């Protein structure tokens, strides 16, 4: 074996080991949660409201609340995020103003989520008088998700070869037609990845919903967009720290359900991605 081969094998081994190091903790976390929580997951746990000061019963309202919040977040952040990314990549000229926008988008993604929570509380709950509501919570989570969605969409749009735009424009297509038919279809897989990543984070956040939507104990389903709702991450926080003498398995079961929801979202995005990749004919 010559030296170059040897070096290559060493490199592969190191890279493989590093990858394993990343995967193993994730698997361990999931495994640990599953082992401790699976026993508590029953049909009634998934479909019933909590009872007896949350020490018994299920988490159904919290599941519904989290799903509603994710949908609400997506309704606001996806169109806004994708459209502003399209503007920044395809239309905006390169000047001080657009550079400032791009810089603030990057910086926004680094802001702690509790700050978004306080902002949402002030802006949506108090000033706009939405009250502690699904609407206020969704908007807060949407603002938190926007930077990641914009950044991912921007990168997805930028990775579409410039020649596609050149072909389209040279045939007399307008800029919008070019974006619509020659750029967006090939950017969708990347946009989806970023969106789902961002929504997964929104599904699991506690701080932004703390003051804007989450109910401590509300064992019923919400009656509209201006109603409060329970949500899984906050429920998990509550039963783990605020209510004494709750069986630990209930906390783990709640965490497991949250992980499952996030996993399902990712699964949907994998399927959608595969579908859109097929549209590109090679």
């Amino acid at each position, binding site marked *: 074996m010559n030296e170059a081969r040897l070096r290559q094998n060493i490199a592969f081994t190191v890279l493989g080991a590093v990858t394993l190091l990343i995967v193993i903790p994730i698997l361990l976390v999931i495994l640990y949660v599953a082992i401790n929580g699976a026993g508590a997951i029953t049909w009634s746990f998934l479909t019933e409201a909590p009872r007896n000061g949350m020490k018994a019963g299920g988490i159904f309202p919290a599941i519904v609340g989290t799903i509603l919040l994710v949908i609400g977040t997506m309704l606001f952040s996806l169109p806004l995020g994708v459209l502003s990314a399209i503007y920044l990549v395809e239309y905006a*000229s*390169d000047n001080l103003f657009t550079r400032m926008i791009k810089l603030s988008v990057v910086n926004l993604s680094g802001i702690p989520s509790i700050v978004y929570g306080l902002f949402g509380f002030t802006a949506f709950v108090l000033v706009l008088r939405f009250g502690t509501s699904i609407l206020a919570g969704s908007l807060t989570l949407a603002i938190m998700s926007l930077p990641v969605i914009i950044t991912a969409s921007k990168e997805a749009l930028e990775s579409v070869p410039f*020649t*596609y*735009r*050149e*072909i*389209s*424009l*040279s*045939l*007399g*297509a*307008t800029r919008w*037609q070019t974006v619509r*038919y*020659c750029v967006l279809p*090939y950017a969708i897989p990347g946009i989806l990845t970023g969106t789902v990543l961002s929504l997964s984070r929104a599904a699991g956040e506690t701080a932004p919903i703390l003051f804007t939507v989450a109910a401590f104990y509300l064992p019923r389903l919400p009656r509209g967009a201006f109603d409060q709702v329970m949500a899984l991450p906050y429920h998990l926080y509550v039963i783990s720290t605020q209510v004494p003498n709750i069986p630990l398995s209930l906390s783990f079961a709640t965490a497991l359900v949250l992980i499952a929801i996030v996993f399902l979202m990712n699964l949907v995005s994998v399927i959608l991605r595969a579908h859109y990749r097929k549209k*590109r*004919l*090679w």
Partner: protein
Amino acid sequence: MVNEPIVQTFDLNCYFGSVHALKNVNIEIARNEILGIIGPANSGKTTFLRAINRLNYLQRTYSQTGEILLGGRDIRKINDNLLRKKVGIIFALPQVLPISIFDNVAYGPKVHGTTNKETLSRIVEEALKKAYLWEEVKDRLKDPAVRLSGGQQQRLCIARTLAVEPEVILYDEPCSGLDPISTAKVEDAMQQLKADYTQILVTNNTKQASRVSERCAFFLMGELVEIGPTHDLFTHPGDTRTDDYITGRFG
């Protein structure tokens, strides 16, 4: 002066940032002629070509002075979309979209408002026939365009341009990546198109210019050195720099 000029430029100057890419170019191009443009790299040939359909403006640093007329109208007064519909371009490397052969050709007519399927089929068939590609692809119009060979892709690009019914077709070194047989096919297509279109051919290959074009222009360092009937330009050029270039003393 030429009869019935379709493209005219007056004191055309083009800049990319501080680079002066074209200097005071005055050219008249006659309807239905094939004008060859030759010159070494960085002589401004491509810039000239892309000035005519304003594709240069895709680069943010680009600026331009002087006038370009298309059919007697200042192109700044024509909507970019309409201008580019009238002035099609074939790029140096065959560039196809990652969609089917049919959809590549149908793309132009679609964005210009043709939605009827039968009309589209007819347009696609006619365009492919004019570009000498129909016989090779008629049974696999749904196949990905990227699976065609380079020469076929380039003729597909020609068909795609023809499908929007341009008046002028610009070729930017269309055969630079092609083998001699594919090159011959592209040149055949150009000869067939002479009856209906004005064609401007930028080429690095002086032999190609002499084979295909009726008039020829020689660009050097952003200047139009001379323009004249191709035969004259190649047999007794008026400028020693042209002579040096075509006899291979530089370039």
